[in-house]
């Protein structure tokens, strides 16, 4: 047993670092480090830079234009990229729909969609949830009726994250009402510019526009956009969720944010008048988070190593362990960051999150995002399958209860 990077892994880490030092635009990194608002163009810019280097898809096999990196190498890359302040690559295309297209799509779909995901030309969003189908996804009702060479789609999706920017949406739709609810679901790829699609913002509790409602009114989707077989979509959807949940462990991002919190604690003043970091009670909380995050990181690496040995198996229910701990640790970091800012976090100054803002502030620069982040990140334990649902999965699948 050895917890250190191997010589090859060390060399790889150095290579990644050198690349980030040379290619990550400082202005972009500054935005990320200071939790300023990122625009669509920021994500696209970074994806383009990665693509140019051949690193557009860290998780894909070489045959599809990916890096062919092992799970551990991907983790190293993500960790270094997060540490350097690179924006997160957009999961919906790279980590969600692409693996499904690779595993279950046909050659024409692979050739048409994958290169555009790699280059960042297509922005994807996810159309799973509906107002009446959240945790109980199988109860979804958006219908797709086959009429000749088209499916005609009618219904409503909820919570489409960043759907306002999207070119494509991958949707679960009902193609049959026979049998168990899971059995009549299909996986469709839909062009967001299709007539009949309306996207309406849902405003989050921190005032931001991040999710949407997406309405389908007689939307025609060519049958060639069906992935795999009709009525087999549930299998593909479950396959995809396993991919989503490792991403939610977010170890690299949390490491960077914890480091930042440590800096904040050095800059802020405790009620005693001393630096906040000297307050033992506060420091204990910070230390606890470091311990928890280390444990999560090693757990993630254990899972990834095991997966690397048997890639076919996929992650399965242990992904739920990572999702629960990852999101809880993330929420705790945001909460402690807000706490570190004291009163200063209470001012609502969303304009201060725009790059280049030079107006009045309350407290240090880090205070502007603190409370909004804390409020917004309550979502972490809700989306991607709520933490209650993850615990149900653990008790049923891992414990056999």
């Amino acid at each position, binding site marked *: 047993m050895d917890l250190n990077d191997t010589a090859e892994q060390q060399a790889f880490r150095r290579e990644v670092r050198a690349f980030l030092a040379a290619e990550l635009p400082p202005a972009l990194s500054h935005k990320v480090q200071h939790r300023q608002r990122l625009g669509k163009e920021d994500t696209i810019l970074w994806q383009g830079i990665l693509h140019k280097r051949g690193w557009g898809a860290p998780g894909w096999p070489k045959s599809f234009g990916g890096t062919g990196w092992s799970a551990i190498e991907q983790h190293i890359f993500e960790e270094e990229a997060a540490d350097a302040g690179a924006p997160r690559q957009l999961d919906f295309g790279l980590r969600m729909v692409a693996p499904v297209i690779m595993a279950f799509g046909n050659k024409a779909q692979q050739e048409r969609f994958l290169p555009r995901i790699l280059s960042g030309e297509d922005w994807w969003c996810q159309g799973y949830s509906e107002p009446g189908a959240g945790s109980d996804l199988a109860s979804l009702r958006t219908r797709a009726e086959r009429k000749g060479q088209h499916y005609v789609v009618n219904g409503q999706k909820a919570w489409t994250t960043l759907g306002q920017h999207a070119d494509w949406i991958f949707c679960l739709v009902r193609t049959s009402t026979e049998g168990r609810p899971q059995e009549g679901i299909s996986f469709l790829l839909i062009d967001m510019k299709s007539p009949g699609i309306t996207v309406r913002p849902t405003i989050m509790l921190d005032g931001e526009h991040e999710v949407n409602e997406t309405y389908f009114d007689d939307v025609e989707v060519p049958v060639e956009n069906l992935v795999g077989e009709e009525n087999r979509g549930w299998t593909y959807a479950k396959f995809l969720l396993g991919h989503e949940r490792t991403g939610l462990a977010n170890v690299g991002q949390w490491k960077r944010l914890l480091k930042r919190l440590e800096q904040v604690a050095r800059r802020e003043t405790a*009620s005693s008048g001393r630096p906040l970091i000297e307050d033992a009670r506060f420091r204990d909380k910070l230390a606890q988070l470091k311990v928890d995050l280390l444990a999560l990181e090693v757990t993630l690496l254990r899972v990834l190593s095991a997966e690397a040995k048997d890639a076919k198996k996929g992650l399965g229910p242990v992904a739920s362990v990572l999702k629960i701990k990852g999101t809880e640790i993330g929420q705790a970091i945001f909460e402690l960051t807000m706490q570190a800012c004291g009163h200063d976090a*209470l001012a609502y100054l969303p304009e201060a999150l725009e790059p280049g803002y030079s107006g009045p502030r309350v407290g240090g620069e880090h205070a502007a995002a603190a409370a909004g982040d804390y409020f917004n990140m*309550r979502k972490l334990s809700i989306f991607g399958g709520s933490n209650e649902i993850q615990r149900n999965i653990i008790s049923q699948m891992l414990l056999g209860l």
Partner: protein
Amino acid sequence: MDFSYTEEQQALQDSLRRFLTKEYDFEKRKHISRSAVGHSADHWKQLAEMGVLGLGIPEAYGGMNGSPVDTMLIMESFGRALVLEPYLPTVVLGAGLVRDVGSEAQKQALLTPIAMGELLMAFAHYEQGSRYALEHVATTAKRDGDGYVLSGAKSLVLSGAQAGKLIVSARTSGGARDRTGVSLFLVDRGAPGVSHHGYVTQDGGRAAEVKLSNVRVGADALLGQEGAALPVIERAVDLAIAALCAEAVGAMDALLETTREYLKTRKQFGVPIGKFQVLQHRMADMLIATEQARSMAMVAAVKVQSEDAAERRRMVSSAKALVGQSARYVGQQAVQLHGGMGVTDELSAAHLFKRLTVINTLFGDADHHLALVSDGLLVA
């Protein structure tokens, strides 16, 4: 021992709740929060007519001479309805300070207009770098002939851009964290040298950063004794904390209610989600936390009247610590149990959660007050 309310108290609470249910529903509240001033002059007037604004003011000045227990009843109702009107800065802090240490002339000039709803007040005390330390006052007041010249900057002044009068703490002597040498002054917000940057707070309320550059005030602006304001400030803040504890309990009650309703109506997997035992237990824990908080809000309301300052502070800190912890738990869990809807701007749950978060931070968070209780163990 007696935990019951008097008939008058019960009647006051009933009529206030009726008024708020009718006139201050969640949609109206949203609208008020988005208006330029952030509260409603109409509602303020009506609260004055109901006697709510004069509650803690002596009868001689047009008030009802009520106690912190009366304030508790009011704040609890305000908490349920997420009331934005500046009761805390104007009535609890502003009128409270004038009532406790004001001269006869100051009382005459200020208390009646406050009770009538004609004057808003703000308490400008905290500064950048003070965190929750009440003794940290770097703003200075230099004697100048008969009067004083004030200079400094105050942070997170609740209603600081709306109030007609500010009560400003400033040092007439001593170093930035000495217990003596702090004085209070009444300052017109429009006085030359006073500038402010007002903003919306995370809960939809209003606050301001206030700057004082060579603000000249007369001798009659001094509120209470020169240099002896710290104990007065501590008591005023304790009164405010007691009020906030009650407000938090009201907000927790409302969250329990709305979450319970949600669990009974929201269906997934063919059943109301309230049928899932894990959610039932979660709500049971939320109820326990709320009841514990209710008890401590009562402790705060009664013990804040204690003559013994050390005992008063210990009890109020105990209450703020526990109420803050409960508020955090109940708020976070209520959002969680609402699923995605809980993190949108649409439902009251998110707004109650945000208010509870703000209450936990104001005048010291749960950790801060637990630390005060804990440090107190060394002195006994």
